[in-house]
């Protein structure tokens, strides 16, 4: 066996027009290691991985596999060479079944002329169950975004590869699924498969990885053993300055008057009898496992999904929200968890994406005021730290995390009374995350009601003053004060080994 690294990238540069996404990057992956790749949003992580997987071609530089210079001209070639990639952006065939998606590459490579659905479904279910018991005959379009993420991961597990790349696989996963994934990755490692792991969650990197490479502004900064590093050090290398990773201070004293009160909200299908209050000054969290129904509750509340019964009181006034536009008019806005499908307009400019929620702000008479729109976009992108060419660029030219920042900027552009954020920091780097947390706290302080749905437990506990935990479409309990991850998980999963905890509700 040669001692050459499995995959080596030397002096790789990539330009998109005027944007230098990567500059003279070196990267090497040893056999059987789990190699973390860190960097701010837009640092060039996904770009490098897309080059390794044959999706993009480098502007210059070379790629070596087992020490031999190789050209990876297409995803098909990458697959033949044994390089697999779990994409940051979900890329599934929505109209096909989960099973077909999972085995798409295998189907493509197989010689047999006919499909064998029975075997396909059986094998797919086996793979799927490693992560979560999603029925594989379902069409992908029926799945929530987090479940789609799991399918995307399952898909990669069926590849017969030597190098497996995970590009932010856990961005929308809860602790349980994340742990299941780690289990699998460790098994893969034991089979001496080499793994590149991209994440913005430091804890994961330190729990899982052997080495860590840091990128900044499209350049390689450092590669070290994880055991030689600390999270703070990694972050400093990423950002180039010290960042306090601590959460903003929580609400001190009593919260103000009730802004929103929900009583017995049901949709007759996915959730039932949901009641909670939101008070001025506090940040309310919604916790739960994937598929618990948090997203549906938020959608129901905002008129984006029909509800069958329930009462919503906004600022002391009972309101009936027929559809989302009327919710927006009443000051209730929702940030979608599914960025690509319903969060941003990929082909439209950054400025147009930000102004959409309240076009009146940028309208004079019946015409758009381009200058106002540009000013608004400039102010908000700066505030959010969006890394971009210019505000007229299409959102599709942004990195995943920066797209998410644009989506949040859109919510910030209006002055809502209640803001519901579903997985707000999905794919967002450490520095920006802290900024967003601060922003949420400021909003809460200024009297805006803030509800955060997050699958990332530390975030949920760190940011929220109070957490309502949802289990199978019902309120399983509520936590406040000094919350622990364990308590949330226990409520969310309904496991009651400490007896009384389950009866908190």
């Amino acid at each position, binding site marked *: 066996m040669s001692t050459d690294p499995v995959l080596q990238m030397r002096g790789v540069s990539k330009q998109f027009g005027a944007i230098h996404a990567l500059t003279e990057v070196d990267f090497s992956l040893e056999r059987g290691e789990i190699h973390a790749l860190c960097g701010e949003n837009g640092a060039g992580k996904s770009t490098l991985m897309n080059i390794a997987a044959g999706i993009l071609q480098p502007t210059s530089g070379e790629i070596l596999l087992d020490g031999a210079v190789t050209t990876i001209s297409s995803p098909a070639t990458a697959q033949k060479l044994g390089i697999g990639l779990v994409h940051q952006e979900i890329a599934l065939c929505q109209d096909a079944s989960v099973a077909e998606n999972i085995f798409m590459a295998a189907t493509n490579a197989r010689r047999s002329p006919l499909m064998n659905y029975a075997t396909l479904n059986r094998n797919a279910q086996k793979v799927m169950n490693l992560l979560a018991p999603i029925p594989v005959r379902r069409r992908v379009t029926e799945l929530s975004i987090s479940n789609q993420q799991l399918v995307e991961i399952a898909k990669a597990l069926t590849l017969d590869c030597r190098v497996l790349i995970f590009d932010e696989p856990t961005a929308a996963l809860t602790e349980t699924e994340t742990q299941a994934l780690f289990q699998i990755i460790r098994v893969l490692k034991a089979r001496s498969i080499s793994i590149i792991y991209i994440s913005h969650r430091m804890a994961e990197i330190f729990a899982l990885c052997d080495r860590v490479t840091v990128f900044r502004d499209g350049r390689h900064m450092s590669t070290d053993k994880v055991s030689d590093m600390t999270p703070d050090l990694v972050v400093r290398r990423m950002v180039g300055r010290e960042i306090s990773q601590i959460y903003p201070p929580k609400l001190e004293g009593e919260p103000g008057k009730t802004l929103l009160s929900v009583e017995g909200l049901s949709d007759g299908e996915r959730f039932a009898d949901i009641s909670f209050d939101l008070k001025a000054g506090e940040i309310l969290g919604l916790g739960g496992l994937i598929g618990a129904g948090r997203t549906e509750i938020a959608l129901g509340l905002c008129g984006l999904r029909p509800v069958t019964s329930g009462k919503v009181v906004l600022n002391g006034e009972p309101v009936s929200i027929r559809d989302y536009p009327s919710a927006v008019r009443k000051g209730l806005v929702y940030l979608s968890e599914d960025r690509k499908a319903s969060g941003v*307009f*990929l082909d*439209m400019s950054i400025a147009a994406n930000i102004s959409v*929620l*309240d*076009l009146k702000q940028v309208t004079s008479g019946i015409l758009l005021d381009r200058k106002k729109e540009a000013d608004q976009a400039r102010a908000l992108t700066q505030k959010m730290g969006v890394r971009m060419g210019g505000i007229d660029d299409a959102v599709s030219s942004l990195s995943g995390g920066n797209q998410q920042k644009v989506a949040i900027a859109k919510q910030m552009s209006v002055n809502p009374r209640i803001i519901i954020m579903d997985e707000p920091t999905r794919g967002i780097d450490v520095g920006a995350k802290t900024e967003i947390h601060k922003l949420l706290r400021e909003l809460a302080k200024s009297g805006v009601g803030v509800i955060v749905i997050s699958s990332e437990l530390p975030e949920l506990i760190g940011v929220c003053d109070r957490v309502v935990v949802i289990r199978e479409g019902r309120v399983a309990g509520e936590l406040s004060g000094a919350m622990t991850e364990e308590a949330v998980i226990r409520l969310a999963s309904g496991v009651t080994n400490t007896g009384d905890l389950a009866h908190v509700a």
Partner: protein
Amino acid sequence: MRETGLIVIILALSVAMTFASPHFATWGNVRAMLMSFSVEGIVVVGMTVLLIVGGIDLSVGSVVCFSMVVSGAMFLMGVDPWTASLIGISVSALIGAAMGFFVTVVGLNHFITSLAAMVIVRGMSLIVTKGTPLSLFTLPPEFKAIGQGEFYGIPFVIIIFVAVVVMFDFLLRRATAFRKVFYTGSNEKAAQYSGIRTRQVKFWVTVLCSTLAGVAGVIYMSRFGAATPTFGVGMELNIIAAAVIGGASLNGGSGTIFGAILGMALLSVVSSSLILLDVSVYWQDMIKGCILLGAVSIDHFLHSKKR
């Protein structure tokens, strides 16, 4: 800008034609070309907006015809021609509203809805006319002036056309209401999640497209002094082709009025050139198709280069 490629191609063709035929670069010929696509150009405007929102309308030819027929029949029944025209245009708008209903409330797609409308509305023209062209010979001259009159040597039709195009091009680029059309066509779900009433947007765009077709019908009536029940058969393909050549996508989210009009101009220059050069009728179709394909390929090439 997408349009530059088309402009370059049209200019190149025109220069070539100027050398090939002494008649090409005359005001008479330019006027002839403009006249020949001015009225259809009004329909192209509506179609482009509809394509941007992700729709399509196969019924425009039938609606143009029905607007003609209804206005004509009203006039023959003694209604004054201006009121008759208004009725024709209103009926067209109503047809658009009906299609909008089927698309936004019933939930059918634009293709099948407008296909059915195409057949139904054509049928209604047959019913009204009993298959024979209505002779509107008695239309008063001041009404005929819309289609046949001039203003300082420039035909009214061209003035109307330019006004409509400039106005809608401006609105489409600048008006808030039309921006919503882009949002809806670009990503309907995201638009809904941004508080845009996408159904309303689609409904009104559908109405707009039919209404403009109705306007075109009235102008045609004024120009030809007749209402023929077979008028406009197959027009939709030409219109959609112009918009698509001009950069509109059948998947919605992109397109400009100016581009679509350039697409129309390209088609018109080609047709007109073939006649000026006295190309055999048997060869005209093939050559026209080849030039079209070539032009679009070159445009695509110029366009994708710039990215």
